[in-house]
């Protein structure tokens, strides 16, 4: 352990690992929450003001302004909160799909084979291609993107859940429960669900970064959200036109902000995983 993470040094060194993990989760979650709340409260229909168009970052406009004189900080935060909404929608739907499929797989060996085949099928198609196709066929927009990301990201969680459920189903306490005359549904609800709940939770959170990244990339390519919405993907693709003119701030700050949001979600997911599965923390 020569490399100590930031939370092991200085100010936080008096806390134990559990407290540090909790602190990290709280801090990152509150940053995301602030971005999200600000984004929903801000009215992004900024008036165009050509007297301040294309200004580089200053104290008045920390992220600069675009070619119509709109403040990029406000647009970026609005875009991030949009990304977070899409992330929430996509990860919840994909987790629901994963739970249902894992439950189906546990029914019998035929169902299990079918689900495994479905997992292999979806895992073999490139994500971005699948997302573009689903998004277009559902009429693009936020709904299309959410569905597209959800239907391409259930694979990992399903794989994990299926394996877990298989293992739990062979345990003696499930066999005993069957001898007690409990129904299959009762066993799934009472025995299996509490054991896989942490996996579901962590799995849902870890879809977030993927959802946000894919939303932006698919919007950037023009298959996602409509151009009037200030999504990060839209901001980035619009900035392409002005990059050659030296307006680097149009792409730089929104891009970095997106990266930070994705990283924050990743940190929350990893730390939650440690909390739920302490043996993981020692690896």
């Amino acid at each position: 352990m020569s490399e100590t993470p930031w939370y092991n040094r200085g100010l936080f060194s008096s806390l134990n690992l559990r407290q540090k993990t909790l602190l990290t989760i709280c801090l990152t979650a509150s940053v995301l929450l602030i971005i999200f709340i600000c984004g929903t409260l801000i009215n992004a229909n900024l008036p165009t003001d050509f007297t301040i168009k294309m200004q580089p970052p200053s104290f008045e406009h920390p992220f600069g302004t675009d070619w119509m004189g709109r403040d990029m900080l406000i647009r970026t935060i609005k875009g991030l909160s949009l990304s977070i909404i899409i992330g929430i929608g996509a990860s919840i739907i994909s987790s629901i799909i994963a739970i249902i499929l894992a439950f189906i797989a546990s029914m019998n060996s035929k169902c299990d084979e079918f689900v495994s085949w479905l997992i292999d099928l979806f895992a073999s198609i490139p994500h971005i291609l699948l997302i573009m196709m689903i998004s277009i066929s559902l009429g693009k927009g936020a709904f299309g993107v959410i569905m597209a990301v959800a239907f391409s990201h259930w694979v990992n969680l399903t794989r994990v859940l299926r394996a877990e459920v298989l293992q739990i189903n062979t345990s003696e306490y499930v066999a005993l429960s069957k001898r007690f005359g409990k129904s299959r549904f009762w066993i799934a609800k009472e025995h299996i669900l509490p054991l896989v709940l942490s996996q579901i939770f962590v799995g849902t959170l870890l879809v977030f970064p993927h959802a946000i990244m894919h939303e932006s990339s698919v919007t950037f390519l023009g298959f996602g959200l409509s151009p009037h919405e200030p999504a990060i993907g839209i901001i980035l693709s619009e900035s392409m036109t002005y990059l050659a003119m030296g307006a680097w701030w149009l792409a730089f700050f929104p891009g970095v902000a997106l990266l930070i949001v994705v990283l924050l979600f990743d940190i929350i997911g990893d730390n939650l995983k440690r909390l739920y599965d302490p043996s993981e923390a020692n690896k």
Partner: protein
Amino acid sequence: MELKANNISFSYNKNRHILKDASISVESNQIIGLMGDSGSGKSTLCKILSGYISNYTGEVTLDGKPIPDKDFYPVQLIFQHPEKTMNPKWKMEKVLNESWQVSQELKDTFGLKDSWLTRWPSELSGGELQRFSILRALNPKTKFIIADEISTMLDAVTQVQIWEALISHCKANNIGILAVSHDPELLEVFCDDILKFDEINNL
């Protein structure tokens, strides 16, 4: 009531039989002991009698009728390792009451402390857990108990305590017991009859 197994044959792999035409019968007022070497198939026979294994040949009957598989199974197996038969994410109270609402009186006879009920399975010792797994098997619908080495990991005092409580309850409620053990001294203390596993298994 009579639990009867007729000509049971079973093999884990095709080439090697572990049970061949084994027959055994237990009356509900009896305590039958079963002795045998390690790996001879005692536990397999127990699992067949209590419905955990279904792909055997032969028949298991209760009063001459086959045992319905869907509802509560009247032949309950108590395992050797109680810690494996409890969901690690369940509190002991839920574990105890999974099959039926265990009465306070019975909890007292088995020396179950109320403070144990709020703990997780990993926080109790093997002897404490075994009391739980015995109690939840004593559902009013239970007609026979198969005790597969239930006291091997307990000290002598706890063994006596648990067996005495179990036997007195079974006598009072007309539940038959098939007790499996390595230990002939233990079986001789309370069994009506002791069977050698080699003699009932025609291998």
